[in-house]
């Protein structure tokens, strides 16, 4: 496989052909914030947090779905990008009811970590305080739609790692909702295998194990990558 040479934030880097900008940056120790990206499943470029500036390209492109090319000059951390990322996070916090103090994932939440790391100190937009329900009909797991960021990680792991196809998206725009089967209660789902991969994949406290209280819900993401590495590369090793 041919190598490509490019610069990320002024650093000269060689990358494998076909690799994404995100993979290349991560390998080179450059951190690009992500939310919908999850190692082990394909990328959708939906959260727009990993957008980067590429010299000569008018549009900002998501690092997770953009392939490297020879001679690319990439900026991952300009003032403009940092501002956009803060705004996106503000929009997320204003969109649903993200109250860390009472959340099962407090302290282990990717949204919370992103807000800290990107310097999003407060939300200047009006909170919309939508009334979303909590689905606790499942024997083992619960889904709190108030904490959902619609990253669709759960949908992707359900379809492409577990192959059950239980989770899906219904509705559109701000009224989009993660559903089980044909918008039934999770507990009534006949396709759910109770594997718990969606719970592991969730970046926030939207999907949780029943019985966990504030701050107790930790997500084990390495297991998902372990499974895909084992399947695709036949290597039974834990991802680093």
């Amino acid at each position, binding site marked *: 496989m041919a190598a490509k040479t490019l610069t990320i934030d002024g650093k000269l880097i060689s990358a494998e052909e076909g690799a994404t900008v995100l993979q290349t940056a991560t390998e080179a120790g450059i951190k690009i914030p992500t939310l919908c990206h999850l190692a082990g499943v394909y990328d*959708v*470029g*939906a*959260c*727009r947090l990993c*957008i980067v500036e590429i010299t000569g390209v008018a*549009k*900002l*492109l*998501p690092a997770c*779905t*953009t*392939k490297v090319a020879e001679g690319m000059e990439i900026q991952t951390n300009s003032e403009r990008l940092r*501002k*956009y990322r803060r*705004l*996106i996070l503000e*929009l*997320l916090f*204003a*969109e649903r009811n993200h109250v860390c103090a009472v959340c099962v994932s407090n302290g282990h939440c990717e949204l919370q970590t992103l807000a800290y790391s990107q310097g999003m100190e407060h939300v*200047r*937009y*009006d909170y*919309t305080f939508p009334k979303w329900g909590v689905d606790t009909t499942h024997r083992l797991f619960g889904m709190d739609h108030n904490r959902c*960021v*619609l990253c*669709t990680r759960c949908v992707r792991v359900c379809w492409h790692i577990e192959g059950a196809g239980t989770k*899906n*998206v219904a*509705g*559109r*725009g*701000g*009224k*989009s909702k993660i559903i089980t089967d044909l918008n039934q209660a999770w507990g009534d789902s006949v396709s759910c295998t109770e594997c718990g991969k969606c719970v592991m994949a969730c970046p926030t406290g939207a999907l949780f194990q029943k019985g966990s209280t504030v701050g107790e819900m930790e997500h084990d993401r390495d297991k998902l990558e372990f499974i895909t590495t084992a399947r695709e590369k036949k290597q039974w090793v834990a991802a680093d």
Partner: protein
Amino acid sequence: MQLDDLIAIAEKHKGSRKKIIVRTCMSAGCMSSQADVIKKNLETEARLQGLEADVEVRRVGCMGFCGQGPLVGVDQNGEHNLWEFVKPEDAPSIISALKGGACRVQRGDPKHPFFAKQMHIVRANGGIVDPERIEDYIAIGGYLALHHALTELQPAQVVEEVTKSGLRGRGDAGFPTGLKWGTVAKSPGAKKYIVCNGDEGDPGAFMDRSVLESDPHIVLEGMAIAAYAVGADQGYLYVRAEYPLAISRLQIAIKQAKQLGLLGAGIFESPFSFNVDIRIGAGAFVCGEETALMASVEGKRGTPRPRPPFPAESGLWGCPTLINNVETFANISAIINRGGDWYAGIGTEKSKGTKVFALTGKIKNNGLIEVPMGIPLRQIVEEMGGGAPDGRSIKSVQTGGPSGGCIPANYLDTPVDYESLTKLGSIMGSGGMVVMDDSTNMVEIAKFYMEFCMEESCGKCIPCRAGTVQMFNLLEKITRRQATARDLAKLEELCDMVKNTSLCGLGQTAPNPVISTLKFFRKEYEELLQPDPFGPAAGGAPLAPERVTK
């Protein structure tokens, strides 16, 4: 089917024509005012008055002057008459007028600037042919371009001709059509697809609907030529479910073309095969975006995906796919028949050919017009459209629907082409042109379009999903006179962010109506703002509440 057979059909059909043709518009607009009853009454009346042998009452598509409908056209002794605002009970009067004498119906003026300034390529057969009879289309030279392409041109020569014509995509972005065809033709792959985007969704736009309802074969022929040029054998016509008449006429057209061997296997007895299937949309505006449309055709949830890869490399089911708008395909047969050079002679340096616009809003003559590119906007709205009704003046013209912008009246001398409109912060778009008079509140207009985008956002990417909600809320706050300068700043900040970070065209252009009204009508926003209690004027500190002492 060979060329001789095609000519034979045309000659036979021409020979059977009657002396007088009464054309009844049966497009969705006139149909909503009982055009079907009018046609039936005209037929009955012709029989009663003993003119059955001489008069053909023909179902035709849109004649363009939709605001004056229902329309009935009469072709008699080489003269053309147009009757406007026809009611079912007017049939006896119209038929007796054929024998000479007065008619009580309002007579239209075919030399009116509304018609005189037009130039018909896409809509050449609209209002003339019966959209449900393929013989009508063949009689005026239909499918000759396809025959010419298949028998005398190599696929590369077809692409070359389209490239030479300078035709640009009529859907929205104005991408050079020839370049797109060339890319798909060169993309490796045994299986390729053609997709026709008929998911016209902009508020106030009805160009594609009219073409599909009035002349479905011109689109099918364009698709078949495109398929030959790029090496595809399967096409999909994606039409929104809100256009039932267009769908049923397309179904009839496809069936008739297949029966005559103009679609299907071995067209014109050549090795070239091409099938067309209709896919009906499910009511999502975002499915007009090409990647969302393709997901919908595949039976998936209609959400866009990041590009690249572009559909030309990886489209339907991962195969190279050519996706063009209805109007783009409708230009093709004329380009093949008359040559790319002829087409390139029309329009401006960078925008060639004609463009169909749906002229609506606060304007005297509304309807469908096809004008050469580069025509000044003033000619369209003032001469053709007749200006604003009720003695009011025109304030602004909105082009490009929710992705476009508002062009203020003092820019009316702008030529209508891709570059000039973009320079003004608007876009050509698919052809919606909404005229606004001086009673229009521009902030309300911006809010209307933002609400539309908010409702139609698919919800995949955060900037569009959550950003449109916040922008709408801020606009609502402004119109309720509850906002301060700080809210306006927040709105502008969001416009910039949503425009630059959204995944697809819907989000990237959703702020345009706000940006353009802010650019030209900022005063209207500022007049609605309230003093900021925390702003610089108040010393940056909250105003102390007044003490109430009893």
